[in-house]
């Protein structure tokens, strides 16, 4: 087979693979391999260009694979939706932390506290808020976020994201059972 023909087939496989990005990785690989084998068989008879044409619109083919895999499961697992949710959770978490800092300062004000006070709402995974006070008045503050904590918090977020994503993907299989 000519290199150009092979490229035509690989391009079609790649386009379909891009559209089915929400499927589990192993299933995507199976589809790629099967599609490639079928297209090579077709190209042997009618040529690569015609083999690609006979697939029809590649996006429609990919949607067909998604429909076949997910059936009537709604909402379907979706990377964009997953990342959007992760960002939303992060924003809400940060807003809650800042609200907590504000409340912490208010509590120290109410107590007319003096000295240095630390507050770490997420323990070692989050920032440490330090407030300095003298004569019962606010004097200054610092927010520390060291590199290890940053990595650990990203790791925990990724872990939660992966576990939630895997659970979500298991829903179609569980429903089928």
């Amino acid at each position: 087979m000519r290199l150009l023909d092979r490229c035509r087939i690989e391009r079609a496989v790649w386009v379909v693979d891009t559209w089915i990005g929400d499927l589990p990785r192993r299933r995507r690989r199976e589809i790629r391999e099967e599609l490639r084998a079928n297209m090579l068989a077709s190209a042997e008879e009618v040529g690569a260009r015609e083999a690609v044409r006979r697939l029809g619109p590649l996006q429609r083919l990919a949607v067909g694979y998604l429909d076949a895999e997910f059936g009537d499961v709604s909402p379907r697992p979706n990377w964009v939706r997953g990342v959007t949710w992760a960002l939303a959770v992060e924003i809400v978490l940060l807003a809650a932390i800042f609200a907590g800092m504000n409340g912490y300062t208010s509590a120290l004000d109410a107590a007319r506290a003096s000295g240095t006070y630390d507050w770490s709402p997420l323990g070692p995974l989050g920032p440490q808020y330090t407030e300095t006070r003298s004569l019962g008045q606010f004097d200054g503050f610092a927010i520390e976020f060291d590199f290890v904590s940053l990595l650990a918090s990203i790791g925990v977020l990724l872990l939660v994201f992966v576990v939630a994503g895997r659970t979500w993907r298991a829903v179609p299989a569980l429903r089928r059972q």
Partner: protein
Amino acid sequence: VLSLLLLRLLADAESYGYQIVQRLRDAGLPEISEGTVYPALARLEREERITARLVPSSSGPARKYYRLSPAGYLALGDGHVAWQGLVDVVDGLFALPVPAEPAPPTGG
């Protein structure tokens, strides 16, 4: 209907995707698209009506051959009965002569 045809063809012989498309074309569906058949096979496999195995090919990568599962045979039987019922209804209607004019409305 396509699922029923696929089950029927696979009941005859274990086949891989492109081969099934060829068999459908030979059976009288020359315009059928691979893009329609491949997802339909994926759906039947998900529904466990067909099973698949990889068979090495001398002319390229391994091909995925499909065959009916026990559930597939049941679905084929049920589907055939349902299809035959539909055919009987349609045949019954088309067996009547077509009047030159539709009848006027009856009742209130």
